[in-house]
Structure formats: C-alpha cells, structure tokens
C-alpha cells in the first residue's frame, strides 16, 4: 500500500478529523466533477462522497481488510456504483451512465453497497426529525437508560421520557414507511 493510501485508510479507520478533512480537499472535487458530468449536482456529490466513505469505514473494520487497489480507485469505484444506482432509481431510463459502471472489485463490497443503500433510508428519516427527538433517540439507540435520558433531557419524569421516546420513534417509523424505498426493502 502506498504511504498516501495508508494515510487515508487510517484516517477513515480511526475517524481522524484532520485526515478526513484532507480526504475531502483532495478527492471531493474530482468526485463532484464526475457526478456533474453524469446528471448530478454538487450536493449529490457530497452525499455520494459521504456514503462512499461510510462504506469504506465499514469495510476497513473487517479484520482481513486489505486494499488491493489504489485508494482513489476504490473510492471512485464506490461513488460510481452509488451514483449509478441512484440515477437508475431516481430517473428511470432518462439519465444513465454506461452499463459498465458496476465496480466489481473488493470481495464483499457489493453486499456493503447494498446495505448502505438500505440503511440510508433510516438515516434519511432520522435526519428529518426535530433536534430533541434526534438527541433522545440517539441515546435510546445507544442503550442509555431511560432514567438517565430523562435527566439529560431535563424531563420531569421517566414516564414522560418514555412517552417522548415513543412519540419520536413513531415519527421515525412513519417516515420510513412513507418512503418509496421501504416497500422495496421489506420485499427483499
């Protein structure tokens, strides 16, 4: 592995802010250029770029992970696949990138890409919630006890914290169900 590639992989593996900033500076403009050329905008490029980094983040957690290509080849390949999938879902046959966009490298990567697309549905729904719901649910999903959550949120009682948790989670579930991707996901 080249030193620069190792630096980027370590930045992702260790969630290193400075290294990740360098990654954005170095590679986001190139990914943006690709997305713009293929019917997208800079905001789409940012989303795809972030999702690709999350895919790599999951990949590098695997004990037997080895980078078998250059880092940019991997990143670019994942972005191509993610954007290709989104184009197909978003605009049917109106806009498409060449059929050979499928990135076939890195064992197990296609499964991770699929998983990423599924999970994005939940993250998108979560982001639509109000700030207090996001905070409450973040602690709830992290298995913080309800009594502790009630204290942190400065609620009057644990009972009220449970009620708010239910209301927030219900909002989340309803938003997920209202998303077109949901039926596709549950049919898999």
């Amino acid at each position: 592995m080249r030193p620069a590639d190792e630096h980027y992989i370590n930045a992702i593996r260790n969630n290193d802010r400075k290294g990740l900033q360098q990654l954005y500076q170095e590679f986001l403009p190139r990914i943006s250029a690709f997305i713009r050329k293929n019917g997208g905008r800079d905001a789409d490029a940012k989303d795809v770029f972030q999702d690709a980094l999350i895919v790599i983040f999951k990949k590098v957690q695997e004990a037997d992970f080895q980078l078998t290509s250059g880092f940019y080849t991997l990143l670019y390949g994942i972005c191509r696949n993610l954007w290709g999938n989104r184009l197909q879902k978003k605009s049917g046959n109106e806009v498409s990138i060449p059929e050979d966009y499928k990135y076939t490298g890195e064992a197990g990567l296609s499964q991770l890409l699929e998983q990423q697309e599924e999970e994005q549905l939940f993250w998108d729904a979560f982001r639509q919630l109000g700030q207090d719901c996001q905070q409450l649910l973040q602690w709830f999903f992290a298995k913080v006890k309800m009594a502790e959550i009630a204290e942190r949120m400065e609620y009057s009682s644990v009972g009220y914290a449970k009620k708010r948790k239910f209301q927030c989670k219900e909002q989340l579930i309803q938003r997920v169900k209202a998303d077109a991707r949901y039926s596709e996901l549950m049919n898999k």
Partner: protein
Amino acid sequence: MQEQYERIEAYLDGTLPEPERKAFEAELEGDKTLAAEVELHRRVHRTLGNASEWAFRQNLEAISEAYEAPAENGKPGNRSALRLLLGILILIIVASLLYYFFMPAPDAEPVEPPAIEQPAPSPTAPEEVPKEEAVEETTTPTAPEDTPIANIPPDQPNPALEALVAASPLSSTYELAAEARLSNQNFTLEGEMLSAQYEEGKSMTLTLFDNQPGNYPDAPLHTGEIQVMEIDEDAPIAFAAKKAYFLDYEATLDLPAGLYYYVIRVDGEAEALWVGKMER
C-alpha cells in the same frame, strides 16, 4: 401503541420474560404485519444503534459543512460587493444625467458639464492591473487593442488552469486520477487510469507549467513521457470492460517556490486527460 413498541423493544433486547417471549413468538408466526413491524424495528435499531458509525457520520457531517463554508461565505459576499458597486455606479450615472439635462444652466455662468464617463473607472479600478505590473511583452502589430498579459505572483492561482483542475478527470474514455509531489528537486507523479480504449505502448506525456497566464499552453517548463503499467489482470479491482493502469513519472527539477500545474495527455487525443496542481 406505546405498549406495542415497548414489547417489540423488549423482545429485540432479549429482556422479555420467558412466557411472554414464547407467546410473542407464537403471535409473530401467525401475524405477518406484526412480523414485518418487528423486522423494521430490528433494522432501525441495528442501523441507528451503531455507535462508531454514528461518531464517524457526525465527524463527516461537520467536515462537510465546514468544507462548503468558504465557498458559500465567499460567493455571496463577493456578489453583494459587486452589486453595491454596480448600484453606486448606476446612481452616479443617473444623477449625472439628471443634472446634465434638468439643471437650468444660465449662459453667463459657465457650468462644467459633468463627464458621464468619469465615475465609471472607480468601481472597476480594483480589478484593473496597475500599469507598472504589466508584462513588458509587446502586443502583436495585428492586434494593437490587446492588453498585455499581466504577471501574477508565483503563488496565485491561474483561473483558466484552476477550472481544468476542478473539472478533472477531463475524459470519460480515459478515467484518470493523478497526484504529483515535489520534494527538494525530486518531482514524482503517481496516478491510476481506467480505460477500455488505451492501447499498450501509446505514449502518455506530462507537461508542467508555472502559474503565469501567458505560459499555458505554449510555454511549458518541462515535458516528459509517463511510464504506464497495466495493473495485474487477475487483481479483483476492475470495471467490467476496463483495464486498470498505474502511471509513474519521476524527474529532477530545480524550481523556485510557487504554484505549478501539470497536464497529462495521451497520443491521439486532442484534449488533456487530467490537469493537477502542486505547490513548491
């Protein structure tokens, strides 16, 4: 409904007491809607309960926001400054015209008619290059109206080349990404290329330019041939119909401090494939 949620959560957490768990599982067997609901909760918990991914996402979101901040802060600021200048310019012109046409000017009192052109230079003045900084190139006799190309400080970006850097990779036939470094006098370039069209042996060249607007594309500082190596065909990394190549170039260059741009081309293609930049 709240009770139902709590029951599902206790089941997923494994905290539902044994008799209740068995009863719940029996219920799941016969109720597909409930089973789908439990599955949805399971996936939501699995996804949003991943603490390390949460931290990673939060970090990325913060970086992403900060990344766009300079562009967003800069652009509207520049735009509003430009609007302000334009507004002042229009106001001055309108006021001048009103004064010129409507002020009663007695013949005896010689009133200097305000020059309409006079206010114009002031808003544009900051963008003009001071004459003493102009390059001492002579304009061609065929185009006497051309203004000489100005020199810019060696670390200042060249707008034309910056646009190419931002747009790179410039070809969809030769998908290329490269990075160059200059350490002491050792110039190195490494890159990767995916292409179904590249014919082995075809020459790829690197051309190096400084940042001066007058020097691109006709006055390169350095030109050389890049070494192109196909990446092992058995390697799992490849797009269906494309081959992957590694690009390598090294040279000894004695360059002063400044901003430099490198352009990669392949024989037979009119357009550059990649334009990158580096600082010395």
